[in-house]
Each structure stands twice: as C-alpha cells, then as structure tokens.
C-alpha cells in the first residue's frame, strides 16, 4: 500500500496533500503561512521520505528546511543550508530548485538559486556547497534576469554519468561533463527572439528542461517561445513545437520511465500568458515531440491563469501521475498520465512549486 504525497508550494505557504488512490485527496493545514515557497522536493531515496522546502520570507530572507515526518516537524540548519561566503560578494535571494540526485548518490541533492548559482549537498540537503565552476564562469557577468529574477531554475544530474545540465533565465542551458567542475553553454538551435541578430551562444531564456526517462542524452526544453528536443545531450536542439497551439509556456515534464513521453502546458504568448481560449490543458507527446495530443478532461474552462515552471510535476506511479497548479491557486492531479484530472485544491495562493511522490502507506 502506497500513499501519494503532493507538496504544494505557494506564494503564501506550503500545503501537503495525501491520497491513497491519487483521486481522493486530503489537504493539510498550511505550513509556513505567509512564506513564499518557490521550491519543494520529496526525496524518497534510502527508504526515508524527506520533504525539502526552499522558503522565503519577505522580511527575513530565504532558507531551506526539511521534514522527515511529512510535516509534523521541521528542521532548519542553524547556519543555513545555502549561504554565500563572505568573499563571494553575494546574498541568496531565493531557492528556485531542489533536486535530489539518483539512487546511486543517496546523499546528494542539488539546488538552483537566485542569484544564478548551483549548489550541491552531500548530506541529504542539510548543507550545500556552491558549485564554483559555474559561479566563476566567465559568462556570469553577462547572464541576465527574467521577470522573476536571475536564477538557475533547473538542475538535471544524469542518472548514468557525471553529466549535469543547468538551465537559467536568462542564460540558457549549460552542461558539465565532470559533475560541475567545468561548464559550457549548450544552446545551439534555441532562439532568443528578444535579442537582435542570430541566436547567441548563450543568453536564451529557457524556461524548463526535462530529461528523457530512457535516453539520458535526450532532453526536452520549453523556451521563452520555442519547444525543443536535443538528442545529443544539448549539443544541438530542434523544434518540436509543431502541433502545439503555442510554443510559449513554462512547464516541461518527462515521463518517469517511458522514453519519448512528455507534457507541456502551452500559454498563448509572451504577451498573453494565459491558456489558449481560456481552456487549461496539458499537451502530451508519446513520440518525443513529433506529435501532440491535448489532455483537458477535468481541467477548467474560462481559466485565465498561467501554470508556472515548477508548478507541475509527475510521480513515479504506474501509470504515472501528472500534477499541475495554477496562479489562481487551483491544483489538479491525474492518476492516469493526463487522461483525466481531478481537483486537489482550489483557491490557494498562487502555486509556485509542486512535487509528488509515492511513499509507504
């Protein structure tokens, strides 16, 4: 018997939803009310369920806390889990991403932050070290800020080797082949329509990247206009936007086990960040983005709110669960890979982050 746990990070607190069938959900009382929760993770490696939360107080700043008892108690390292050193000349603004590594690296957790930086923990997310290779990268001074801030919002360690991909807004995709020691931009083929001339080596506003479940060299990217696939670990990217109602959006999800299956949540355009015709829908491909199918059963119409880049996730169930949350504070779950959705919660604050996991019941 497994229980599904859905961590819902919003602009004003965290909720934990649980379900025995991924259809009927129980919603917790709010945790960290009035704190922004831009990142959550549910780390189930090693037989323990650890919920990690990147929270931010408008007054008291950002921090990372964790719970090993599904929110009954929370711990925060006194010195802070992620802090710049005195010589770095920077202060942590926001933790955008908390990404547990694979099963074979049980203590390793990555974080992507604002200002643009990547961090690595070897102790299950209690203390993180700045990844110096990226922080000291000669491009760093030229990376810019999107509307939400200048952040590394995606960190994707490879399950098979020391490759790590990072995506940042704005800066694009960078890849390390040596576990973060050195980094190179990997944006060939990704547009940057907001910049004059041909697309640059870096500077793209990549919104989200996901790694294919079966081919670790295959990546999918939702760009600030543009949906792409790379079959060579990011060396080159080709458009897979044909068949979608729009190439704009924030979400990119890959199936947890099956290669070639991915989901996006299109929005009309940069200048019209709402679902097309006000119909909230995910679009799924089962062939690596060659063709797409709309999935909207159970999702609302007359809905003019965006789904942000981390306000969507999949779980590892079979069939896989698909989850999304909107800036209207509505959260939807599908227990059948997007075929039908049920509403988990509504009228919460803006949903910023969602992560789901199946844990022993």
């Amino acid at each position, binding site marked *: 018997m497994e229980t599904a746990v859905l961590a819902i990070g919003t*602009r004003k607190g965290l909720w934990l939803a649980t379900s025995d069938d991924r259809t009927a959900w129980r919603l917790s009382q709010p945790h960290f009310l*009035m704190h922004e929760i831009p990142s959550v993770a549910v780390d189930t490696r090693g037989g323990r369920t650890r919920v990690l939360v990147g929270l931010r*107080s*408008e*007054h*008291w*700043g950002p*921090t990372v806390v964790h719970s090993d008892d599904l929110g009954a108690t929370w711990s*925060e390292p*006194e*010195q*802070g889990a992620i*802090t*710049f*050193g*005195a010589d*770095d*000349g*920077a*202060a*942590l603004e926001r933790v955008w991403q908390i990404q547990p590594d694979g099963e074979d690296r049980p203590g390793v957790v990555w974080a992507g932050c604002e200002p643009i930086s990547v961090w690595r923990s070897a102790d299950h997310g209690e203390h993180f070290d700045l990844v110096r290779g990226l922080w000291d990268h000669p491009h760093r001074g030229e990376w810019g800020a999107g509307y939400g801030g200048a952040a590394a919002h995606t960190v994707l360690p490879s399950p098979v080797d020391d490759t790590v991909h990072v995506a940042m807004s704005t800066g694009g995709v960078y890849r390390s082949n040596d576990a973060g020691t050195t980094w190179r931009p990997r944006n060939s083929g990704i547009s940057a329509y907001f910049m004059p001339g041909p697309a640059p080596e870096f500077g793209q506003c990549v919104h989200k990247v996901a790694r294919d479940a079966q081919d670790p060299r295959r990546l999918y990217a939702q760009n600030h206009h543009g949906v792409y696939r790379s079959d060579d670990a990011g060396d080159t990217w080709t458009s897979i936007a044909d068949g979608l109602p729009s190439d704009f959006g924030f979400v990119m999800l890959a199936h947890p086990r099956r290669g070639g299956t991915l989901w996006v949540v299109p929005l009309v355009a940069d200048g019209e960040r709402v679902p097309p015709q006000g119909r909230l829908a995910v679009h799924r491909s089962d062939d690596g983005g060659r063709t797409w199918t709309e999935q909207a059963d159970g999702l609302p119409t007359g809905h003019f709110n965006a789904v942000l880049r981390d306000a969507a996730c999949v779980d590892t169930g079979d069939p896989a669960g698909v989850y999304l949350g909107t800036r209207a504070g509505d959260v939807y779950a599908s227990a059948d890979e997007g075929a039908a959705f049920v509403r988990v919660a509504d009228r919460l604050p803006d949903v910023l982050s969602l992560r789901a996991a199946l844990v022993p019941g």
Partner: protein
Amino acid sequence: MVTPDGDPGPASRGTDPDGLGVVLRVPRALAADLGGRREVVLPVPDRRRLDGLLDALVPVHPALARRLRDETGSLRRFVNVYVDGLDVRRSDGLATPVGAGQTVEVIQSVAGG
C-alpha cells in the same frame, strides 16, 4: 510597562536593570530564533556600533543573525532597526553607535502582498 501581548514597553529595562548591556528586542516572528524570548541582553560590542552587536549574535544566535542581515552584511530590506527609538537608516546605518543602557529594537516593516 507590559503591553497586552507581553511586549515590554520601550522604556522598560526589565531584563537589564543595571543598564550595563544592550537590550536587543525582536518581534514575535523571531522569538523562536531567540530561544522563545523576545528580548536578550548583549554585552556592549567592542566597536560600540550596531554592526558589532549584530556580529556578536552570529555565534550564539546564528539563525536570528541570518534573519536580520544577508551574507553581505547588509540589513535585509524589510528589517527595520531602531536604537533607542531612532531608525538606524536615518542615522548611521550599521555604524550607528550602540552603548550600555541602550535598547536595539527590530521591527518588521510593512511588506508583503
């Protein structure tokens, strides 16, 4: 004077009746980072400045120290600090003099949506 929420009034020196130290007073939201208290008496810092007082917090109340200043040492944007009722941003900022018998009060500013 004690207000209904237990907040000692601005003239109170109940925790430091001799006035030999510096009283640091924090809002309710930060009490957990001060061992459940709203007030602590700290030694007068060597430099007799606010930054010295806040530096002294780091080893004994590191979480509280992080709430007040970021890693560059700057006061967080929406943290207001008053020394005997004077907003340090209208004085010398972190270089504002702090001495024996004075009260340093942290108040969260109006922020949030």
